[in-house]
């Protein structure tokens, strides 16, 4: 008895395998499910959105973004852009945002400088210096940042004198309970040339560095890049400044009435927040720097000195570039932490985004959904931008395998 299937076998083997049915093709099946999932999530999001809108409307709560163009009517203590009580709620968003960015930006710079210094001190061969660094790190990073902010603001600040008997330096700088008052620069139109000179000097410095690198790689001769660049960056703008007739005056602060009038006052809320966050983050950065430097194999240093490099050249050319590979990814997360921690400023009344926009503006308009959404979006965007930049930098610094 012959099985028709068996007899047909050699033929089917020789032909191209027939297409599997739609449902048996894993690729197509996966595609279908993915499309279904996306549609499902889309429906869910739409549902949440329309449901929220419906409920807000039903409860008589105003919705939409019209409030952004209504006048705000309240004052803000620190504004980097012109702002009056007659400005709009939309403007309060930018005032708050800039105040947040100011603390985050300055905090990142100070924390990095202090962190690197402490991290290197931690590795010092001097017993005293390395122990001081150790105590600093262990104390600071184990105290919650909010307590540190309150410490500077509530414990240190009240010790300063009031504005009427403030500490003064040369009758120009005044330190008191309400901040640090310093002379403010008043620029004349011709000052713009000095700014151009600064830009020009930076470009020139960049070109010098490029040229010096090229020369070193082709001839092996060293060029004193650092000192040349320093002279260019300081010298050129200074020269232009005096050639255009010193177009800069100073607005000297003077005590009139309750407070200093004129000059520039750095509010104590900013100082306290900046001090606390910089020091707190610096303690973490110090440990990151220490671990980064220690991760570079000792043989590298020995090989460099065998080649005749002096110790600081070894540090600059061999150790730090390799340590940076370890340091940068961790540094990124510290920068992100610092940025998000700026919202703690609300505890001491620093007018950041959370205080001004997600605080007062929210309360005056009652539109919580829109305002919290915008605020969260801002923190998300700031964080993504920082990590994008650090990823780019990390890629540049990564070990190029040859």
């Amino acid at each position, binding site marked *: 008895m012959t099985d028709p299937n068996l007899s047909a076998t050699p033929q089917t083997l020789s032909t191209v395998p027939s297409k599997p049915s739609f449902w048996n093709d894993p690729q197509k099946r996966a595609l279908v*499910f993915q499309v*279904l*999932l996306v549609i*499902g*999530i889309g*429906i*869910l999001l739409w*549902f*949440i959105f329309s*449901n929220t809108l*419906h*409920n*807000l409307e*039903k*409860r*008589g*709560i*105003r919705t939409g973004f019209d409030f952004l163009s209504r006048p705000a*009517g*309240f*004052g*803000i*203590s620190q504004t980097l852009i012109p702002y009056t*009580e*007659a400005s709009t709620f939309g403007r309060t968003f930018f005032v708050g945002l800039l105040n947040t960015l100011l603390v985050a930006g300055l905090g990142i710079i100070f924390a990095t400088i202090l962190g690197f210094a402490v991290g290197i001190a931690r590795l010092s061969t001097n017993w005293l210096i390395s122990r001081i660094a150790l105590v600093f790190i262990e104390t600071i990073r184990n105290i919650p940042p909010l307590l540190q902010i309150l410490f500077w603001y*509530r414990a240190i*600040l*009240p010790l300063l004198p*009031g504005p009427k008997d403030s500490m003064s330096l040369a009758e120009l700088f005044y330190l008191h*309970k*309400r901040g640090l008052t310093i002379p403010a620069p008043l620029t004349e139109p011709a000052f713009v040339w000095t700014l151009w000179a600064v830009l020009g000097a930076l470009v020139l410095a960049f070109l010098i560095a490029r040229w010096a690198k090229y020369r070193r790689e082709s001839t092996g001769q060293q060029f004193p890049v650092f000192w040349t660049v320093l002279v260019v960056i300081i010298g050129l703008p200074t020269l232009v400044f005096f050639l255009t007739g010193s177009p800069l005056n100073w607005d000297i602060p003077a005590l*009139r*009435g*309750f*407070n200093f*009038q004129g000059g520039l006052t750095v509010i*104590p*809320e900013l100082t306290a927040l900046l001090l606390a966050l910089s020091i707190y983050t610096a303690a973490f950065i110090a440990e990151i720097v220490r671990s980064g430097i220690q991760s570079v194999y000792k043989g590298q240093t020995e090989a460099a000195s065998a080649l005749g490099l002096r110790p600081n050249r070894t540090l600059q050319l061999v150790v730090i570039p390799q340590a940076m590979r370890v340091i940068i990814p961790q540094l990124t997360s510290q920068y992100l932490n610092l940025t998000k921690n700026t919202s703690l400023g*609300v*505890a*001491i*009344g620093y*007018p950041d985004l959370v*205080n001004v926009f997600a*605080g*007062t503006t*929210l*309360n*005056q*308009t*009652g539109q*919580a959904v829109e305002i919290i959404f915008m605020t969260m979006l801002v923190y998300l965007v700031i964080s993504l931008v920082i990590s994008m930049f650090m990823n780019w930098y990390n890629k540049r610094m990564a070990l190029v395998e040859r």
Partner: protein
Amino acid sequence: MKKLLLSAAVLTAMVASSAVYAGTTLDAVKKNGAVKCGINTPFPGFANQDEKGNWSGLDIDVCRAVAAAVFGDATKVKFTSLTAKERFTALQSGEVDLLSRNSTGTLGRDTGMGLTFIGANYYDGQGFMVKNSLNVKSAKELDGASVCIQSGTTTELNLADYFRANNMKFEPITYEKLDEVTKAFDEGRCDVLTSDQSQLYSNRITLKDPASATVLPEVISKEPLGPFVRQGDDEWMKIVRWSYYAMVEAEDLGITSANIDEKAKGTDPNIKRFLGLEEGGDANLPLDKKWAYNIVKQVGNYAESFERSVGEGSPLKIKRGLNALWKDGGLQYSPPFR
């Protein structure tokens, strides 16, 4: 995959069910066994907290009156302390059933936030407190001053308006909590503390040296302070409103928590009707017939509440002033109970 779809379906169902959230506030309150009342962070006179954690004060008494009306038991209240910034969101989201937190009733709040202003249980106005050492006699001399304020209040807006109208400059320093504002003023971070006058008096007694500061005579705004409820539940709104009226009406009728049982034996039809002792009472509220009796018996009338919280029986010693009954030249007035 199946699991994912299933969980998506469950989530959808959950969201959908919250959309049909219904039931009246009264039902929810009865089910909870307590009135969820949003109040201030400790604030002398209006929301005092003793060492055992018990609350008392003028705003607290509104919560207690509502509990007495609903449950016949003034202690059935669950208090939630809210900052100025949190208060309206907490009420909108249903975290509290009633907000009794010296909040100013304004057009914007009453119409744009899904809330209803019940009425003023305390008529106030915004004022300024300054350190005596500054030698300031009038608010008009405050040009260039640093001013401490609580954020998210009408105070913040009035202040800006006042300085703008008088062509003066100021540096606003805003904090979230009242005690932070007071501390900053005490430590000299600012020259002036501005708030409702009632708050100024109560802040003053919490200063390190209360005699070091003075409240200026100017009152720059109208601040009718009172309870808020969510918009859209008229039944609940009327319960809260008439609970407050009951306290005022009791004072008007001369009924106190002490003499109420004696008065109930009398023959005055107004009093009998008020206390729910006469058949054919006019109240059509889903409450016990003796709701007003319970309020007065357990919480007291408005005068009792006022005097023991902020008046002569308290360290604040605030005069009745605008808060006297209408027949004594004040603004407290209840529609008739008939």
